[in-house]
């Protein structure tokens, strides 16, 4: 308790609050720009933090991280483009809400949900880090494989309309994921002897290509009349109070999303994109009116935005206790800690308790800071986009996405891939194939492949190496869950048919 008080005093200093404010604001804008990721923002800040005290540096990084993950929601809501992979699920209901003239309401809901998520993540980190860290360690290659397969069953719910089309999209995603140097074994696959393809298709490249470009093309297709109009985002007033009521009127959804976010966040390598997709999926499944999801139901928005902000502090659990980065941006934070002579582990909390707890508390402050920064910044971004006519908006977004894609890996091939995938995405959207199942296949395919190969390799001394996939109790639990989920997806339809 004394340590906590000291830590709180160390953080509630004017210059610390200023660092948090600036960090959250900068993060918000980076997150809102497609292609600029939290990892990149943190890496760019590294030389700057080197000149600061250890605590100041970590506080700055934590604030930027929190701001970035939240900032992704703006573009998701306003132009149907996830600014970061963690806000894919935010597009599903956030953008339909904006189209109905409820953009500001959606932004307010996303803000409140993000704040709740951020604070909950910090609370978990303060009180439950050691047992959660043990959970993180349970996830070995076999569990990662089954976890990824479980994730792929989300396609059943995420595909609007035909499940078959969703599965087809997932398969396309899996195939795209195999391009490049194989994660295990190091062979070149589908590079056709062309060195630049060794890098494969980055998730963000696919994300921008499949989400942004089709959106821009369909804006263009609406024709000249629509192009000259300002974006029809409506004028509905500021709904902070009603947004608060909306978020807290479904407490079960909020609690469930936060729990899901926390559990997935501690699994190393899972990442924010999966967190929000799973939370969204469960919100839809738990709802009495699942058919309203994808059409502007605020519950979907709450699920996505609360769960992905839980992840910010949540992924610090394995980082601070074991030195295992839970998500890519954590790797940069680990680097900064090591450079300041801080070693993750129990010592971090006992010997440098003020610093460790101060860092954790500062993330909570960063989450609270999202309210003023997000609502003011959000209004600014919203007003700018709303007043901008399509003929100006479309080329501007196109230029930003091209720059963002290039900045990602400084690779011009990425830009070509992004544009190519964009055209393909536009065509298949017309055929009723959504972008989300493709991206899900791309994310999970790599995880499943690694898990499978690593598990089977480890069983080389056994008669049937594949048996190792079924050996662990946690694997068996996951397999049972997969069977349940598939049964659940198939069952209601049959019941429905019988009624007819």
């Amino acid at each position, binding site marked *: 308790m004394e340590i906590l008080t000291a830590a709180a005093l160390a953080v509630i200093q004017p210059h610390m609050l200023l660092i948090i404010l600036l960090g959250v604001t900068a993060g918000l804008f980076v997150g809102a720009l497609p292609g600029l990721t939290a990892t990149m923002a943190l890496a760019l800040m590294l030389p700057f933090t080197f000149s600061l005290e250890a605590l100041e540096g970590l506080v700055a990084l934590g604030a930027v991280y929190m701001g970035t993950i939240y900032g992704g929601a703006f573009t998701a809501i306003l132009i149907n483009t996830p600014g970061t992979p963690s806000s894919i699920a935010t597009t599903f209901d956030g953008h339909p809400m904006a189209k109905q003239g409820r953009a500001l309401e959606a932004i307010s809901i996303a803000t409140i949900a993000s704040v709740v998520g951020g604070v909950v993540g910090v609370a978990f980190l303060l009180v439950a880090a050691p047992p959660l860290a043990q959970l*993180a360690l349970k996830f*070995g290659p076999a569990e990662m494989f089954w976890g990824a397969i479980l994730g792929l069953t989300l396609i059943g719910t995420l595909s609007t309309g035909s499940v078959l089309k969703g599965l087809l999209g997932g398969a396309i995603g899996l195939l795209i994921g195999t391009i490049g140097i194989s994660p295990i074994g*190091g062979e070149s696959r589908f590079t056709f002897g062309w060195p*630049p393809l060794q890098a494969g298709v980055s998730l963000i490249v696919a994300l921008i290509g499949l989400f942004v470009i089709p959106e821009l093309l369909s804006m263009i297709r609406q024709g000249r009349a629509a192009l000259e109009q300002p974006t029809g985002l409506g004028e509905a007033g500021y709904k902070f109070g009603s947004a608060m009521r909306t978020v807290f009127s479904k407490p079960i959804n909020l609690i469930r999303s936060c729990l899901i976010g926390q559990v997935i966040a501690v699994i190393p390598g899972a990442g924010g994109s999966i967190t929000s997709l799973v939370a969204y999926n469960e919100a839809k499944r738990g709802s009495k009116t699942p058919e309203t999801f994808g059409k502007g139901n605020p519950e979907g928005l709450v699920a996505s935005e609360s769960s992905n902000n839980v992840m910010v502090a949540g992924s610090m659990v394995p980082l601070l206790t074991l030195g295992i*980065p839970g998500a890519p941006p954590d*790797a940069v934070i680990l680097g900064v800690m090591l450079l300041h002579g801080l070693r993750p*582990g129990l010592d971090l909390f006992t010997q440098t308790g003020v610093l460790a707890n101060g860092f954790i508390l500062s993330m909570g402050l960063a989450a609270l800071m999202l309210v003023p920064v997000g609502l003011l910044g959000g209004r600014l971004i919203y007003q700018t986009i709303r007043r901008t006519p399509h003929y100006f908006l479309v080329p501007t977004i196109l230029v930003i996405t091209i720059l963002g894609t290039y900045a990602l890996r400084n690779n011009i091939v990425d830009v070509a891939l992004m544009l190519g995938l964009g055209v393909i995405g536009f065509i298949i959207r017309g055929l009723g194939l959504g972008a989300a199942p493709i991206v899900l296949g791309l994310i999970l395919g790599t995880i499943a492949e690694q898990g499978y190969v690593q598990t089977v390799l*480890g069983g080389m001394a056994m008669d049937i190496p594949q048996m190792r996939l079924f050996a662990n109790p946690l694997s068996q639990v996951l397999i049972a869950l997969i069977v349940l989920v598939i049964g659940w997806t198939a069952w209601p339809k049959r019941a429905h048919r019988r009624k007819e």
Partner: protein
Amino acid sequence: MTDSKYSGLTVVLGAVSALAIAAPAAAQDFPTRAIEYIIPFDPGGESDITARLQEPLMEAALGVGVNVRHQPGGGGAVAWSEFQGNAEPDGHEIIGINIPHIVAQPIQRSDAGYATEDFDIITWFHMTPHVLVVRADSPYETLDDLLAFAGENPQSLTVGGSGTFTGNHLEALRLQEVADVQLTYIPFTGTGPLPAAVLGGHVGAVISNSTLGVQLGDDVRVLAVAAEERLEVLPDAPTFQELGYDIVGGTYRGVAAPKGTPPERLDMLADLFTEMNETLGERQIPMGFQMTDIRGQDAIDLMTRLREQYGDFLN
């Protein structure tokens, strides 16, 4: 006689003073614009973090901006092949390089897109020796315990490491050969997942860089270090050589310019990196890094030696 001696001295003195004048002159015409410093890996990795620490020191010393850009993909190959194809050999474009990556990839992949010898190596500025690590509660107290188990149970002992045909992998292959045992090497994507693999008991042991051994502290036991001498930061960990196995190796990191860069500019940059090592060493040595300054012919010899050592495994 004295006369000629005198004149000889004059020539030498003249040459020295000419050099002294020439050096600042050379410094003035280079650098004339910002330095592009490319890191072929993801942000947050050892190469990236080192470069971001060097960046402000380089800017102060050179008086121009330094742009650190990362261009990850293919274990570095994407950036290296583009660099060899497009970079100007005038010293303003430099790139991070790693051993054994730039030695192993062109042998192992037909489409690596670059050649080991088509770099002008500025310097290898530090290295991290490999370490063999087990969890603190592992039944293997010593390297011999571990090898005895591996000898009796071929392929049963799993050893995790970063990537395939990387330094970690090649070291595992050498251990197999030198100790005459059969291990099962399990590649992970980078060093990031290795702590979870060893602490969670998903692999029996891990071959990784010294930095990981230092970072995990008391949670793990470092059974052996692939260096010629014990590391100051891991005083209790014996070297492989002490234990009777001739294994010395690690990951070297450095910087290179495109082939054909003027030698005096390479030297100037090499001097700068050596100078920066003093400042960075204060922070990096406690993390498990060994600061080095291997340049010129030594840098090429190092690669040739390692190529011979690893060559059999790569073909």
